[in-house]
């Protein structure tokens, strides 16, 4: 089978009960909103469509392309799903995909499924749709560029959230898990961005009506742009901060009482360090992060332009 699990599907046992339950509550509330919205706006025709689209995302995750040294790029699909189906429908589709992966393939646990859906389905859909729509009805190149940045950021957001949950559960050390996860997923995200951009380019060329004015994908409101933008900003600022100064983040979490609540396990919380929260290094790495995002955006823009020139 071409099915390749990613380090984003958390199995049972790696998150503690508290973190799992909090994630389930957030996921359930968001899904509740998604269900009531889709029930209102979708006709009965859309139900088989969403079901087949869920199968599509699942199957599309099997499409890969060789990168180098035996590794390959492939799709997670959250951004793509929300861009072509709209944010609420995209979330439901991703939820179905993650649920079946957990149930049938044991790729991801059941108690932690709330966290997995939150990381890979809800946040990716919000970022994907919000950033893609933020450029409005710009030129094809701009829209594809936005989709590429959105796809990359959505994977980074999922990796960041996964790391934070693992840390709050006392499973991983923040200073190691964040740089490791973000580093790996910066590359995985590039694969995601490229496939998303080229897939969207293909769809825009053959069935532009599916993504144009009045389509399902164009219906949702402006709120998504703010939501997607806000989550992206948090990712852009928090990831470099957390990689450069995990102790600072740990201190903040401890001060706010997150850490004590999260790590109910009976062991001693790592003692305070007296590091300044926002040191020079943290600030400079935030800048580096922003610059990185801009560079990725430019690269993808150029790719999009090259593709347009050829076609």
């Amino acid at each position: 089978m071409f099915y390749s699990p990613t380090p984003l599907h958390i199995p049972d046992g790696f998150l503690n009960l508290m973190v799992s339950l909090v994630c389930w509550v957030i996921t359930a509330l968001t899904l509740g909103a998604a269900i009531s919205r889709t029930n209102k706006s979708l006709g009965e025709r859309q139900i088989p469509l969403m079901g087949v689209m869920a199968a599509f995302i699942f199957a599309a995750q099997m499409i890969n392309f060789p990168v180098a040294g035996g590794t390959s790029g492939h799709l997670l699909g959250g951004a793509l799903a929300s861009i072509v189906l709209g944010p609420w429908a995209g979330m439901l589709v991703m939820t179905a995909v993650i649920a079946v992966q957990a149930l049938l393939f044991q790729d991801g646990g059941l108690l932690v499924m709330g966290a997995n859906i939150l990381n890979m389905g809800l946040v990716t859909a919000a970022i994907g749709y919000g950033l893609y729509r933020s450029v409005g009805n710009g030129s094809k190149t701009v829209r594809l560029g936005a989709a590429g940045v959105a796809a990359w950021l959505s994977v980074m957001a999922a990796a960041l959230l996964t790391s934070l949950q693992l840390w709050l559960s006392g499973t991983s050390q923040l200073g190691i898990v964040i740089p490791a996860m973000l580093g790996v997923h910066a590359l995985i995200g590039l694969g995601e961005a490229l496939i998303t951009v080229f897939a969207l380019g293909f769809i825009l060329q053959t069935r532009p009506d599916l993504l144009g004015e009045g389509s399902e994908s164009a219906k949702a409101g402006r709120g998504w742009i703010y939501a997607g933008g806000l989550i992206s900003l948090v990712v852009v600022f928090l990831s470099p901060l957390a990689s450069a100064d995990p102790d600072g983040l740990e201190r903040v979490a401890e001060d706010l009482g997150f850490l004590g609540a999260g790590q109910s396990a009976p062991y001693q919380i790592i003692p305070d360090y007296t590091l300044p929260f926002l040191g020079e290094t943290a600030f400079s790495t935030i800048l580096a992060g922003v610059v990185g995002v801009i560079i990725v955006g430019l690269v993808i823009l150029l790719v999009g332009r090259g593709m347009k020139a050829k076609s």
Partner: protein
Amino acid sequence: MHFDAFDRYHDHDSFIHRLDPRVKVVVTVVFIVSNALLPDGAWFAFGFAWLFLLLCNLLSKLGYAYTLKRSIIALPFAFIAITVLFSIPGNPLSTFHFLMWDFTITDAGLLRFVSILIRSWLSVQMAILLVAVTRFPDLIHAFEHLRVPAILTTIIAFLYRYLFVLTDEVFRLLRARESRSAAAAGSRSGGGVLWRAKVAGNMAGQLFLRSYERSDRIYNAMLARGYIGHLYTLNPHEMKSKDYYATAFAIAVIFLMQLIGRF
């Protein structure tokens, strides 16, 4: 590809197979929650949980090691937890040198690491057993009875129904890519990474359009057969007395497990 290519169901006529799917879902979830609740180093409780798993394996006539053999799947994730070996303060057990760092494994860290692995390993085995003794459509109906919103269960039902169709489609696309990527021996075929990404992206786009158009045909076919907006089953499930007894027994055992783990 056959319609049940993805199903992990193993047909047997056993006590567990005959139980109502709701019972199996509830017991599985309670068992996994119980594992998460057990404190680190509750070895007796972990052992007890494993005996319970063994009993379930035997009662479902799959052989006592059925889930054990398939539980390797959860192992690759273990490296994520490996940092707790070194990060939790405690008595040092052993120190080793790697590149430019010294790593010290502490007893508290080892305790936590092993506990996380055991919890994960017990939970994944129960989940494996659940899909081995329950047909997937029955599982979906169980979720429907357990108040999972109908729109989600319907999407999942469609996903399951069409997954093998679209997987066939993916295999066709992959086969086509392979057959046009011929190259002379010793030389590379195709372009750079970007070009390859473009091919893969176009395949995903192609798959999307084929799926989209297929969903239209599916809807029309369903409409012609009397679809009214939701799915229904011809064999509704019914909880019998043995289902209630089995649930009560399993919950009692899991409760006992918690008591053993706490005292």
